[in-house]
């Protein structure tokens, strides 16, 4: 019971967030100072069949002669029909198709990077918290990693592994001469292109997890229950295990916040390696002033983040029973 109420409440928050994100997407071109909508529409004048594009369901939603509320309703209607407009840069492809084609590349980068960095980072952080010498060596490294801009880490890795020791390819998701298939040679080729952007994300995120875990464990070891166990003569390993389990919980909540940052990291990292995900797509859209493509990418990024947050919330409720109890109505 508690779990369902909890999930329901979270779903309401995320639906509200989706609503706000769509509204921002609608409002920003209309209400920014200057004449953004003019810039947007003038781009169509350069196209060969501009009249046809203007006729698209989505561009109709921009019909500025209509009252604002009607524009807004039309915008939603187009969106719910899956119409995100037509790309100018990749004319006449639909924005929806382009964005959905790029999305898998983000997922294969971000999901493994977040999971591996979380596991390895937490493990290293726990290790540092129990060993004074290791702590002094590792902590400055963790701080430096977490302080590095993702794309700079990517530049450093590109310099080391594609120029100094050229063992990995510098750009793309697979070699130009090869077409995607499930053959071994393609998979090897794909992984060779994938490893450096993946490592860039992994290294930067790892530092943050390790610092968080180390601090949480030290915090828990100073708490009353740890002192009480110590006074009772409990073995150190046991006290540590309890501290570790309690320190895990905030780290799971941290995952939700990290997803948004990981997406930001992926956007810039993909640019360094010309990796064809949403970030690289956004860069193309910006350079070619393809506003529909840019806003479509934004929307898909938001949806991706919302879904992953929702999944993390459910995992959290399963791992920590206290969350469920809060929503049974008996307490609070």
């Amino acid at each position: 019971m508690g779990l369902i109420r909890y999930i329901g409440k979270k779903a309401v928050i995320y639906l509200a967030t989706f609503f706000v994100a769509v509204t921002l997407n609608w409002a920003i071109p209309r209400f920014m100072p200057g004449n953004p909508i003019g810039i947007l529409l003038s781009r169509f004048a350069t196209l060969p069949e501009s009249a046809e594009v203007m006729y698209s369901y989505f561009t109709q939603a921009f019909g500025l002669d209509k009252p604002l509320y009607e524009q807004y309703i039309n915008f939603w209607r187009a969106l719910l029909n899956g119409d995100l407009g037509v790309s100018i840069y990749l004319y006449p492809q639909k924005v929806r198709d382009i964005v959905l084609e790029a999305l898998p590349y983000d997922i294969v980068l971000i999901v493994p990077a977040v999971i591996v960095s979380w596991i390895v980072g937490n493990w290293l952080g726990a290790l540092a918290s129990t060993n004074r010498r290791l702590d002094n060596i590792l902590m400055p490294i963790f701080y430096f990693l977490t302080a590095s801009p993702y794309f700079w880490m990517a530049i450093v890795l590109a310099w080391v592994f594609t120029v100094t020791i050229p063992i990995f390819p510098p750009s793309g998701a697979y070699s130009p001469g090869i077409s995607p298939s499930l053959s071994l040679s393609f998979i090897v080729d794909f992984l060779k292109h994938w490893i450096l952007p993946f490592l860039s994300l992994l290294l930067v995120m790892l530092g943050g997890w390790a610092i968080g875990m180390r601090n949480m464990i030290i915090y828990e070891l100073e708490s009353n229950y740890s002192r009480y166990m110590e006074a009772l003569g409990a073995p150190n390993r046991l006290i540590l295990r309890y501290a570790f389990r309690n320190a895990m919980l905030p780290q799971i909540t941290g995952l939700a916040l990290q997803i948004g940052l990981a997406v930001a990291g992926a956007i810039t990292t993909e640019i360094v390696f010309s990796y064809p995900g949403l970030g690289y797509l956004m860069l193309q859209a910006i350079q070619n002033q393809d506003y529909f493509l840019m806003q479509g990418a934004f929307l898909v990024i938001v949806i991706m983040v919302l879904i992953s947050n929702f999944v993390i919330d459910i995992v959290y409720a399963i791992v920590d029973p206290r969350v469920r109890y809060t929503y049974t109505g008996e307490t609070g």
Partner: protein
Amino acid sequence: MMLDRIMERHRETLILLRRNRKIKAGASILAVILAIAVIGPYTTEYGPLEYTGAIGEPPSSRHPLGTNTFGYDLYSQVVYGLRSSILIGLLGGILATAIGVLIGFISGYFGGIIDELLMMLTNIFLVIPTLALLIIIAAYIEHRGILIESVIIGLTSWPWTARAVRANTLSLRNREFVYLARMSGMPTRSIILREIAPNMLSYIIMVFILQFGGAILYAVSLDFIGLGPTKGISLGVILQQAVLWNAVQLGMWWWAIPPGLLIALLLTSLYVINTGLDEVLNPRLRRQG
């Protein structure tokens, strides 16, 4: 005058602050980087966008960080770029801290329906990825300067601060000395200014340090995507051009590595100072022995 009273009350804390190893190390690195930003531009004869005649040269005594494909002196670019990146960080950080503290404080102190609404708003903006939002805002601004860049960063990166400050306010509001002040009939304004504000000051300073670093990171990321200041130079702009013109593939590491290293060191120093402050002000984090 208020500052004097705070200093008096916290003499012991100040001694601890000065003794903390993390604060000492972080503050030294930070001081060096700030000095480079302030003095650096006076130590170079070239402007950041001035053709020097040397094209793509590695570091030498004439050009300490080499030159790039366009014949610009990279040392000049880095020192000028550092200056504007720090400026954006300061402005954006101050704005984000101010908004976050205001919303968090109102939410935590007054509670009720105001709290519910403000926290709903905060949670919504907390989930929307800041950089993606910044990108679609910046893309529609035709002429972007340092001021506009820092304003849009400040307007989008406050949510976590609002939530943290709300929690801090809640715990302060329920302390004995605040109850006592309220029972003695002290007006709300005085309670906030004289009882709560001085106790929150150290927390707000820590929040600002993180917001300062965060604003720098958002700014260099925006610059890197090509949405930075339309004129002028910043560390992010140097890196954007380095990647755009294949600096690394052409072996010009001096174009792409030093600017990012400087950002990473600057942020490291801020994080380390912040941890040091946390240790001093929050004794449970202090390691024994």
